[in-house]
C-alpha cells in the first residue's frame, strides 16, 4: 500500500499506525535474513513512535503529513542516541549526539523510522558490496546487487519493508539503486534539502533525497524533506518545494531533450547496454505521444563527467574523512603515541574502497598534481555548467538512462574499481552541476531486471522532474 494510502487510512481511523507497523515488521523479520537491507532494525523505537501516533489520532489531535508511515533511513544520516555506522568499522560503537535535520522533520511529520539501512562504506560505491557488514541483495534476484550506495534503502522499499526510504546521492547513489530495484529515486537540487547530520563524503556533491515505490510517494517525501535550514550554510534560503502540485500537469508542450552523449547517440559514452538504450528510447516516444516536444541535444562535456567526478569526490573525501582519527568517534586501535594510534585506527577501521578513494584524493590534491588533476576537474565542472545552461535555454528537461546496465551479479565488479565507477556515468552530471534528477522505472532489460530512466532539470526546477516521471510511470503501467 502506498504511503499516501497509509496516511489517509490512519487519519480516517480505519487502521492504526501500530497495525501498519506490525505488518511491515513482519515483512522485515521474514525477508531481512535473505536481503540484509538494514544495519539496524529500530523496532522498539518504531513501536513507541507508532503508539504516539495512535494516541494523537484517538485524542483527535492533528496528525503530521506522514503520520504512521514506516520509513527506512540510510545509515549515514545521524540519529541521536542510535548507532550511525556508515557501514564502516571506524564508527563502531558511535552514537551521534544530535539528529539530522531530515530526521527531525520526519519525526515532526509523524513518520515511523523502522531502521538504518545498509550502504557502501561512507557511501563510496555503486553496489552496496563495500559495506563492513556484508552486502545487501536485490529483492528481484538475490544473486544480484541492489545498486548503491543507497542499496539498503532501495531494497527496503522494493521488498515492502518500508513505504518510503531516505538516501543520499553524491554521484548517483539514490538514482542508480532505485533503477536497479525497480523503484523511484530522486536527487534534489543541491541546497534544497538540508545536509545537517548527513555524514560528509563529498560536501559539494552530497544531497539527501527520497526513494519510494511510486512517483507520488516520492513527491510527498520530497516536499517534506526539502526547505531551508539555518543549520546548513549551503541551504537555499527561500526555497519552497512543491513537487506534489506538479504530479498532474502532464507534458503537453513540454520541451524534452535527449542527451546524445549519455544515450547511445553520436559521441556517446561506451558501455550502454542496448536494452537500456531501447527502454530510454521507448520512454522518449511515450513522452512524445503524451504531447512533449522532443529533440536530441548535445552536451559534449558530459563524457568528461566521470573523470571530473573521480577527482573531485575523492579529493573532498580525503579531507572530510581526515576527522576519523580515533579521538572523537567510535573505534580506536591503541598505540604508543597519538600519531601511531591515528594510523593504526584508520588502517583497521577503513575498508579497501575508502582507502582507495582517500589515496586517490590525497594524490590529486598533492603538491605538483593539484593543477593537473583537481584544478582541471573544477574547470570541467564550469564547462558542464555552461553547456547545460545553454541546452536548458531550449529545453525544459533532459532524458538519459539512469545506469548503463541493469543490476549486475554480486562479486562481478568488486575486483576492478574502474568497472564499478563507470556505473555512475549518466548520474554524475547532475551532481557536478547541482541540478535535480529523478530515476523512474521504465520496463525491463533483456535479463528481465528493472530499467530506470533519468529525468534531469535545471537547478531549483525539482518539481518538473516529478511531473515528467509521473507521465512515464503512467505510460509504463
Amino acid at each position, binding site marked *: 500500500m502506498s504511503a499516501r494510502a497509509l496516511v489517509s487510512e490512519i487519519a480516517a481511523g480505519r487502521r492504526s499506525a501500530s497495525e501498519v507497523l506490525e505488518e511491515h515488521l513482519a515483512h522485515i523479520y521474514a525477508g531481512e535474513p535473505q536481503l540484509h537491507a538494514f544495519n539496524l532494525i529500530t523496532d522498539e523505537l518504531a513501536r513507541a513512535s507508532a503508539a504516539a501516533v495512535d494516541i494523537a489520532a484517538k485524542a483527535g489531535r492533528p496528525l503530521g503529513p506522514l503520520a504512521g508511515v514506516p520509513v527506512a533511513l540510510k545509515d549515514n544520516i545521524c540519529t541521536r542516541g542510535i548507532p550511525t555506522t556508515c557501514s564502516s568499522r571506524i564508527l563502531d560503537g558511535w*552514537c551521534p549526539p544530535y539528529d539530522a535535520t531530515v530526521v527531525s522533520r520526519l519525526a515532526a511529520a509523524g513518520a515511523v523510522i523502522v531502521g538504518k539501512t545498509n550502504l557502501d562504506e561512507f557511501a563510496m560505491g555503486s553496489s552496496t558490496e563495500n559495506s563492513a557488514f556484508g552486502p545487501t541483495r536485490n529483492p528481484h534476484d538475490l544473486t544480484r546487487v541492489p545498486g548503491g550506495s543507497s542499496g539498503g534503502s532501495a531494497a527496503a522499499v522494493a521488498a515492502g519493508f518500508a513505504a518510503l526510504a531516505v538516501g543520499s546521492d553524491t554521484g548517483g547513489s539514490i538514482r542508480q539503486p532505485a533503477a536497479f530495484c525497480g523503484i523511484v529515486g530522486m536527487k534534489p537540487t543541491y541546497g534544497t534539502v538540508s545536509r545537517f547530520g548527513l555524514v560528509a563524503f563529498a560536501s559539494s556533491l552530497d544531497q539527501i533525497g527520497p526513494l519510494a515505490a511510486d512517483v507520488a510517494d516520492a513527491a510527498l517525501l520530497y516536499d517534506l524533506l526539502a526547505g531551508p535550514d539555518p543549520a546548513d550554510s549551503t541551504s537555499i534560503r527561500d526555497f519552497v518545494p512543491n513537487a506534489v502540485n506538479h504530479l498532474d500537469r502532464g507534458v503537453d508542450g513540454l520541451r524534452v531533450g535527449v542527451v546524445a552523449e549519455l544515450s547511445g547517440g553520436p559521441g556517446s559514452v561506451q558501455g550502454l547496454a542496448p536494452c537500456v538504450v531501447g527502454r530510454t528510447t521507448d520512454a522518449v516516444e511515450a513522452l512524445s505521444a503524451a504531447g512533449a516536444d522532443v529533440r536530441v541535444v548535445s552536451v559534449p562535456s558530459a563524457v568528461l563527467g566521470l*573523470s571530473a567526478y573521480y577527482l573531485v569526490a575523492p579529493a573532498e573525501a580525503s579531507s572530510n574523512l581526515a576527522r576519523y582519527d580515533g579521538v572523537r568517534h567510535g573505534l580506536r586501535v591503541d598505540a604508543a603515541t597519538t600519531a601511531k594510534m591515528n594510523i593504526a585506527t*584508520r588502517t583497521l577501521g577503513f575498508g579497501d574502497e575508502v582507502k582507495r578513494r582517500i589515496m586517490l584524493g590525497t594524490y590529486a590534491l598533492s603538491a605538483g598534481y593539484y593543477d593537473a588533476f583537481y584544478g582541471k576537474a573544477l574547470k570541467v*565542472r564550469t564547462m558542464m555548467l555552461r553547456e547545460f545552461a545553454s541546452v536548458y535555454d531550449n529545453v525544459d528537461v533532459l532524458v538519459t538512462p539512469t545506469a548503463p546496465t541493469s543490476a549486475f551479479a554480486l562479486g562481478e565488479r568488486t575486483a576492478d574499481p574502474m568497472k564499478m565507477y563507470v556505473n555512475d556515468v549518466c548520474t554524475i552530471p547532475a551532481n557536478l552541476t547541482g541540478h535535480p534528477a529523478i530515476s523512474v522505472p521504465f520496463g525491463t532489460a533483456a535479463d528481465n531486471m528493472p530499467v530506470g530512466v533519468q529525468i534531469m532539470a535545471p*537547478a531549483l526546477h525539482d518539481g518538473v522532474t516529478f511531473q515528467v516521471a509521473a507521465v512515464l510511470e503512467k505510460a509504463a503501467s
Partner: protein
Amino acid sequence: MIHVARLARLDLTTEEIDRFTAQLSDVLNHVSDIEALDVGDIPPTSHPVALVNVFRLDELRPSLNHDEVLNAAPAVENGRFRVPPILDDKAANDDKAAQDRAGQDKAASQDMAVQDRASDR
C-alpha cells in the same frame, strides 16, 4: 604510493600497495582525458551554488550535550577526549627515521607518477 599513504595516515601491506597501485593506475589512466584537456582560462567551479557568507543572530543557543559527545568517544578523562602521548623518546627517534625515509619515498612516489603518466600515452 607509500608517500601518499603516509600523507593519508594509512599503513598499507605490501600486497595492498601492489593491488592499489594497479587499481589506482587504471583510474589515473581514465582521468587522463581531463589531464590532457586544454581548458584555457575557464574559471574553476568548486561548488554548484554560489556560496555567500551566512550570518546568524549573535545570541546564546544550547550546545551539544557534553556527556553525549564524550560518551561517543573511545577514551575520555576529566571531561575531555583522552589520547596517547603526543611524543615519547622512542617516537621522537621514529619520527626522525620517518623523515629520513620520507626523502627516499618522495623520489619513489615521483617515479610512480612518471610511470602513470607514461602509461597514459
